[in-house]
């Protein structure tokens, strides 16, 4: 299927359109960017950006475990470890009195430490590079198929539960008075954020992924009022800035994830001017 699409893609009158790696990278970006943008609108308004950062860092441990267990793809290690973290955090948050940010800090740093110890034990520290910086230009068609399947599950699920997540974040008691089990949805949101992060981390990189989650939502917040506009702007900005960043990184030979984040930060600063003007 990708082959046929690629032959269409090569008809574009650009140099980069002749390369299959660019074609696969653009497809991957088109799947990942809106996903991160949507989840970003939920995470920034639920004080969960610290959690998403922690899950990103935990990918190092996932990678190490996959290396240790000699899994064929490291993705499974990353996905499973991220889910484990979501579950542990949810349970500790519910059944202990420790403050959430302290909990997340402990879990994140423990994970990074464990990951580094395991990687150095298996002499696999050189694999850190791929996960820290991401390598979307090396994505293969099998990886892309996996990404497509994840997207097919995640998009409908998130869209169906989107308003419930808002309700639960605004007031658990309000949700309860409407007969909704807020604890369940809180957990589902954690699990979804963890899944979104873990399927995109190998391509975007631990160091900048969280920015791709926060920035489109923050930009949208500067220019839109109401959930609908907030979400729409966030998706549009996510897509445009990510494809733009990918093309910049092609022309300048820079790391893709970081270039996207720089571009998004510039857009954020421009919209911030508008925000400041309105306040005055």
């Amino acid at each position, binding site marked *: 299927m990708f082959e046929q699409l690629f032959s269409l893609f090569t008809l574009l009158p650009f140099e980069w359109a002749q390369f299959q790696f660019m074609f696969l990278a653009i497809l991957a970006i088109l799947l990942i960017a809106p996903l991160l943008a949507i989840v970003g609108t939920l995470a920034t308004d639920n004080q969960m950006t610290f959690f998403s950062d922690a899950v990103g860092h935990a990918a190092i441990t996932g990678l190490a475990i996959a290396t240790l267990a000699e899994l064929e793809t490291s993705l499974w290690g990353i996905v499973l470890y991220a889910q484990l973290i979501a579950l542990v955090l949810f349970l500790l948050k519910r059944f202990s009195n420790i403050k959430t940010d302290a909990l997340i800090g402990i879990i994140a740093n423990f994970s990074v430490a464990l990951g580094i110890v395991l990687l150095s034990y298996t002499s696999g520290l050189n694999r850190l590079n791929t996960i820290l910086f991401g390598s979307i230009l090396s994505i293969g068609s099998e990886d892309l198929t996996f990404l497509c399947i994840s997207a097919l599950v995640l998009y409908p699920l998130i869209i169906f539960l989107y308003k419930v997540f808002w309700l639960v974040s605004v007031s658990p008691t309000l949700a309860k*008075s409407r007969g909704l089990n807020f604890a369940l949805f809180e957990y589902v949101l954690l699990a979804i954020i963890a899944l979104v992060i873990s399927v995109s981390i190998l391509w975007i990189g631990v160091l900048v992924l969280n920015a791709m989650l926060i920035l489109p939502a923050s930009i949208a917040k500067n220019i839109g009022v109401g959930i*609908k506009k907030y979400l729409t702007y966030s998706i549009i900005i996510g897509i445009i800035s990510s494809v733009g960043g990918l093309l910049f990184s092609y022309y300048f030979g820079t790391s893709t994830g970081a270039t996207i984040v720089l571009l998004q930060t510039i857009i954020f600063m421009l919209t911030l001017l508008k925000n400041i003007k309105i306040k005055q």
Partner: protein
Amino acid sequence: MMNIDGKFKKFAGHILPLIQRHSTCYGCCTRIDHLSVLFGKSKILDDIDLHFHCTNFVTIIGPNGAGKTTLLKALLGEVKYQGSITFSSFDAKSKSIPTIGYVPQKLAIDPTSPLTVSDLFAITMAPFSLFNQQQKIKMQESLTTVGAAAQAGRRLATLSGGELQRVYLALALTPLPNLLLLDEPLSAIDAKSADDFYQLLNRLKSSFDLSIIMVSHDIYRVAKYADRMIRLDKKIIDDDIPANVLKKIEEEQRNV
């Protein structure tokens, strides 16, 4: 006044027939038997027996940590409790789950949140589906009932304390509840707005035969409007008309 009352009747016209079919008192009565709530090893509520009727405005007062909010949470089913809470209609003796409206003290609305008033209604009224035209009309009716019709498009973070409480009240009235619970809704509101809010509550009570239970700190103001005052401090200390409860409190203070 006439205008608002007219709207009440129109609103009530839609809903009352539905409630009447199930009950002769247009609502429910709520019975709490031997209710205790434990938090860890300490007892927050100890063997509470209460009975609430419709068309009755009950206020719950008491010091901090007396278990007032916990009692509301037990009614909402949000905390585990021992004992029983039953909701029943007068005629049929049928135990049923009533519609409970809840007005929070304040919601954790981030000042930068893009959430608007109509978003709040959309996520509450239609969490799993599209916010349809019918629901939008209901939202406008409720907002009109509480005198907040103009706020629908505004961001929650830009509303004043009084405006916000009216919006929360409108939300609790959609759909029209049997039991309306309010948790210190007026703690951040000026005196004039508070009086207006109480008058509004009393009008709603008689228009819709609501059973209202309100936790309050401002005991002298709430006493002017409530029908019954319950003084709570883990147990029920007093349960009487507000004037008598206040008299007792004053006597106690004189003795001290």
